[in-house]
């Protein structure tokens, strides 16, 4: 009964997911019964996963494997899996979307014990600005100058957007500031925000249609948008946050899903991620040039001060409570304060 009620209560997001469940069978099946892998993921890595799938079916393990895919907002996708959406492999924006599945017994407790700690793809938070960077935005301090208009997806309703808010706060502390100063920075940051669209995609749409001077974006999204012909510049700040997207195979998945995860983590898999703008999670991946990057020959410049969840924020669970708690999270309060200014 409880389960039924819970399932009913998530009906709304589910219908959105249903709308997002577009193309089935992304991979070609060159014969043989290789099984089927259902991928449920957040919207961002769709293009990369598709490219990896095309490589995977060329390998002995992947021969004849077909794919069913569903992409949407990370939290919605995770809740959909809890409510019964079939999945063999999940790829989410934030760790809490996987731990939700662990709590339900859908993913093994030791999913993040491997050398990759559960991370399958990574990127960094960057600033997207208008072509030619007319406002001369280079640093975090430039963002809080009077008259600078920021667009960022809403960290309250979009899990993926939480990386941006985290970067804004964390860079103050990383540069030697106190938490108090970081809170002040966050207030100034949100005071300059002119739009808080519901998801990363909505934010990009709003920015590209003319809203704001700067969009808080992922490096890989900026590169992918360039590959798709969109015109804007992006700036890699000296201090930023390493975005780590978790992936996991479900407990009762088709065994071939384990081969898939191994392939995703391998050099071949990470090469495809790199070509779509993600920073490889292992060293020594050969990917040649990456179209759409500021410098295609050196697409992933070293960030002087790169913050990680594990080193700078303890854990995703801890930072969720500290920053995004509905009533007294630091970011929650900064957003609310911005509306009353």
């Amino acid at each position, binding site marked *: 009964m409880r389960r039924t009620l819970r399932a009913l209560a998530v009906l709304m997001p589910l219908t959105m997911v249903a709308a997002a469940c577009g193309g089935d069978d992304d991979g070609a099946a060159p014969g043989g019964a290789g099984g089927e892998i259902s991928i449920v993921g957040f919207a961002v890595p769709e293009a990369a996963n598709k490219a990896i799938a095309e490589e995977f079916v060329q390998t002995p393990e992947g021969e004849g494997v077909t794919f069913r895919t569903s992409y949407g907002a990370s939290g919605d996708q995770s809740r959909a899996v809890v409510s019964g959406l079939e999945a063999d492999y999940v790829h989410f924006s934030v760790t809490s979307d996987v731990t939700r599945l662990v709590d339900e017994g859908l993913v093994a407790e030791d999913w993040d014990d491997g050398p990759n700690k559960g991370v399958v793809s990574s990127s960094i938070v960057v600033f997207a600005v208008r072509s030619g960077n007319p406002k001369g935005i280079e640093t975090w301090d430039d963002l809080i100058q009077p008259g600078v208009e920021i667009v960022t997806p809403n960290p309250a309703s979009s899990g993926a957007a939480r990386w941006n808010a985290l970067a804004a706060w964390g860079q103050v502390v990383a540069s030697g500031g106190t938490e108090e100063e970081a809170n002040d920075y966050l207030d100034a940051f949100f005071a300059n925000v002119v739009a808080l669209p519901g998801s990363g995609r909505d934010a990009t749409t709003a920015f590209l249609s003319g*809203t704001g001077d700067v969009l808080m974006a992922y490096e890989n999204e900026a590169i992918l948008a360039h590959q798709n012909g969109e015109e804007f510049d992006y700036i890699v700040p000296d201090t930023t946050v390493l975005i780590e997207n978790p992936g996991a195979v479900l407990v009762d998945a088709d065994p071939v899903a384990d081969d898939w995860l191994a392939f995703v983590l391998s050099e071949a898999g990470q090469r495809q991620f790199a070509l779509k703008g993600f920073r490889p999670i292992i060293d020594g991946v050969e990917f040649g040039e990456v179209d759409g990057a500021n410098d295609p020959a050196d697409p992933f410049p070293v960030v002087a001060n790169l913050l990680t969840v594990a080193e700078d924020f303890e854990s995703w669970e801890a930072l969720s409570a500290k920053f995004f708690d509905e009533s007294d999270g630091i970011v929650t309060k900064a957003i609310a304060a911005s509306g009353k200014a």
Partner: protein
Amino acid sequence: MALATVDQATGDRPAPRRRTGFAGQLQAGSGLGLGIAVLWFSLLVLLPLAAVVVTASEGGWSAFWAAVTTEQTAAAIRLTVGTAAVVTAVNAVVGPAIAWVLVRDEFRGKRLLELLIDIPFALPTVVAGLVLLSLYGVDSPVAIEVANTRGAVVLAYLFVTLPFVVRTVQPVLEELDPEVEEAAASLGASRVTTFRRIVLPALIPAIAAGGALSFARGVSEYGSLVLLSGNLPFRTEVTSVRILSSIENDNLPAAAAIATVLLAISLAVIVILDVIQRRAVRRG
């Protein structure tokens, strides 16, 4: 719990009173019809609504109250309900005017206009949002910029609720015999009096019904304004965004609590408009 209540409701269908002849057969048929109607309605409407209310009550009264009175949420509810009320009032005036033009006037392009009225209804709301963003966003080609202001919320609500009053008033106007108005005029009534005493009373039930739909739709709107409104707290953030925020934080009771408040408000407005409608019918 909810299931049991509903099952009972279906089971306790009043038994046919007369069992003889042709009338008895009719009763059995309509009993089946009622059963299907109640079952259908229960599955689609009552159960999900009951689930929302039950989920809302999971945290107890204090949690419910805390969820819906958070400053930011209360501001969002005020904005949503206030805007829906304003838009419904506008529709109550503009809707009948458009219907009047469609029914009483002959002009080129009438058929086309007739078709276009339903577009806001037929268009997926996200598409509507994109259209509104490109037309009334930054660098608006028609020099009306409402992006990230409350104007965006009003505009989006006006857009999606446009057809409701028009479509409820139109058939009533078509049925309204112009000869009655002519008779009133020939008896010396001014045009204003004719409108007030003859036309308006006939239209009020339809306006009220369309207004109720318009209000309810406005309160629930999300897709068409999400790109244009900017979701700024205390300024342009509508209630749906608050609900989604609670869901993102895995706080389903809070999400359901806010939803329950919207539900109660919509229900209240529908009831009020229904009362107006009945009064109008009685007086007419």
